[in-house]
């Protein structure tokens, strides 16, 4: 039993080490990064000349040079974040796929959030208001029903049929 515990503890520590090491994955200095290693970093970057084309897909000489820099940095053991920071320091925030969450850039993230909150609120208020203003008396409902273009005969028949079916399955 004690041995089992030790085994589990060993596995747990191993998993913990692996998990903790994920954010700081780098490449051992001197090892050769593969094309895929370079592309993994390159697809997160945009060169300022070739607008809106990620670096891993861009065929210009400038982008080829950038990929060369990424290769060299990976070979020196730099992490992905360090490489991205290097390009930001050289060319500004526009090399990143989206603006960093700081200062004025917060606006780009906050506006959609506000729009959806506002849209949700308007819908909620609208549904409540419509519900309140719906006629409650039988006469009122009949008047609306007569005005309602949805109440044509054929649709009414199908809807009645559907209602019957759903009542029947009670």
């Amino acid at each position, binding site marked *: 039993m004690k041995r089992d515990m030790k085994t589990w503890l060993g596995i747990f520590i191993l998993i913990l080490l692996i998990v903790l090491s994920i954010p700081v994955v780098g490449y051992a200095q001197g090892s050769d990064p*593969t*094309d*895929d290693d370079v*592309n993994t970093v390159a697809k997160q970057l*945009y060169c300022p000349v070739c*607008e*809106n*084309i*990620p670096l*891993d*897909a861009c*065929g*210009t*000489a400038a*982008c*080829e040079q950038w990929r060369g820099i990424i290769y060299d940095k990976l070979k020196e053991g730099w992490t992905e974040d360090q490489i991205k920071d290097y390009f930001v320091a050289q060319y*500004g*925030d*526009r*090399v*990143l*796929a*989206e*603006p960093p969450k700081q*200062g*004025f*850039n917060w*606006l*780009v*993230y906050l*506006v*959609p959030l506000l*729009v*959806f909150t506002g*849209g*949700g609120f*308007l*819908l909620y208020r*609208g*549904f409540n208001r*419509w*519900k309140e*203003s*719906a006629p409650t008396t039988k006469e009122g409902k009949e008047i*609306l029903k007569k*005005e*309602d*273009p*949805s*109440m044509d005969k*054929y*649709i009414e*028949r*199908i*809807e009645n*049929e*559907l*209602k019957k079916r*759903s009542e029947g*399955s009670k």
Partner: protein
Amino acid sequence: MVAEIGFGSLFITLLFSIFGIGAAIYGAQNKNQAWISSAKNAMQLVFPLLTISVISLLYLLVNNHFEVAYVHNVTSTTMPTYLKMTALWGGQAGSLLFWSWLLAAFTSAVTLRKWDRDQDLLPWVIVVNLITLAFFLILNIFYENPFNMIWQEASGGYLFSFNQPLGTRQIFPIEGTGLNPLLRHPGMIIHPPMQYLGFVGFIIPFSFAIATLITRRTDDRWIQLSRGWTLWAWLFLSLGLILGARWAYDVLGWGGYWGWDPVENSAFMPWLSGTAYIHAVLIKEKRGMFKQLTMVLSILTYLLVIFGTFITRSGLLSSVHSFAQSKIGPVFLIFISMTIIISVWLLSSRWNALRSKQVIRSFFSKEGLIIISVVLFLGLLVTVFWGVLFPIISELVIGQKVTVGPPFYERVAAPIFGGLLILMVLCPLAIWTFMSYKNLGKLLWKPFIISLIGVALPLYGGLTKWSALIAFWLVAFVLAVNAFEIAKRIRVRRNTESESWWSSFSRVVKRNRRSLSAMIVHISMVLMALGIVGIEFFQTETQGTLAEGDRLNLAPYSMVYQNLDVFDPQDGRIVARAVVQVEKDGRVVGELYPRKDVYIDSNQPVTVPGVRSTLLDDFYVILVDWKPVTSEGATFKVYHNPLVQWLWIGTYVFVGGVIFATWPEKKKNEVN
């Protein structure tokens, strides 16, 4: 001489347009039918007149008249005739003329309908259409003239003008620079006409909406009049977007189809508002609700069409500086500002008259669910609009340009698309006016059980990614609900009318054209969703430099580089074509021929992928164009794109659904 005819015709069209605007306004103000008829005749003439201009430019393009600057910039002697013809929309000036020509076609066509019942709307429809046309003609005549000649100054510099500037001499180059190689793909040949047809098509519903506001009519007539135009415009715009996606997949060589690029987004925004409009109109027609909303959405779609054209043409996307230097940017800004001011003023002054009496009585009623979908479309629209605009605002405010790329949009779009799929599940079962969640739940359980196959199958196949499982389940749920609903309608009909199955089926199809076409379109959307889920969740890629005989693995596929052939097809290209053998699960399944075409006139390479497509997946191989390609070593980038074919299959279903919706009904139904 031909250039003079083309330009002259362009100028006469502008004069006719201005006359038509004036005559229509005068006729409407003074209730003078003769002036209105005259304006109508002028509007009918703009299409044939612009056709003369278009034919003139086509003649110049096909016959290598390189003394015309536009022809020099977009064609060369080595291009085949069909490409020279498509070069009509291969550059700014030509595409603006093509835009105007298609708009003129729609404008002239709208005058051909019977106007007996809608005489009061006619002059204002003419005014709106001709003002839009006149604006684009002004751009073509004064800023982006496709008939400009090339003139050389004494100092050696070049000028482009229709008339000879002082101190210059005309030059006649013997060769042109040729069309951008990326635009020589079949997808790009068809994509712009579809896109433009979609754009100009939405101008017709807008003109009906504005005419209704001006005449202070509050009935639904404008919606009936514009229904067919809207659906066709929506179909063309959708096709334009999908063909653009297909072009990107085939030509851009990044294994994807949609990059949330500002130009793509500019076409996507009117599609979103147009889709919201089509949904809101359903509620308007069935329940008489949301008059204000439908009017706003119709106007918004038009504005987004103009806005999309504006930001892609004005240089605004590159930077605010290139916008300031752009010839057409400021003119566009004035036009779009005036349109917004007039539209908002008209809307606000008629706002109360457009209020509806009906109210939504149940959250789960069809109208309740549809209005949620409208809000979702608009939410995504605002997000995309903001994403496109933010880099410009950032540059203006803090002087730093930023990139708003795919991660930003995907974070918002993914839950919205999920929400829309849920609504596609609920809407076909919901009924108009009133529906309780209990009743809806009772109708849902059978399709729900069937939909679990959508989870069980991928789970059985070893898939454990929960987000993908939810997506597959929703896709299966939508398909199941629609299948159940169609089956139910046939059964109800058969039981009530005592007909045969076939007879019930054909009657249901004939009598439920709208709801069935909506179902078909929704089914097409989930088929496309299947392709999107496949590529977004499961795409894998690898890259490697191989010598002949070397292997590159990307499970479940493997490819072997066999050989390379470099040849000159005598059409202005040098082609480097590799032969790779493809194996799946260890078995040879075929050969692919990824290419690199280098266009001699522009020295620009284009990668053409080799793709093995099945319903399950695509194996997509490209020759990486920035690495040397030789027999000793060539660099390949390989993608495995599961289910992506369903994206294109969904397109065919979509086209079928919309055509079914727009197919003219029998007269009996029209009378009804």
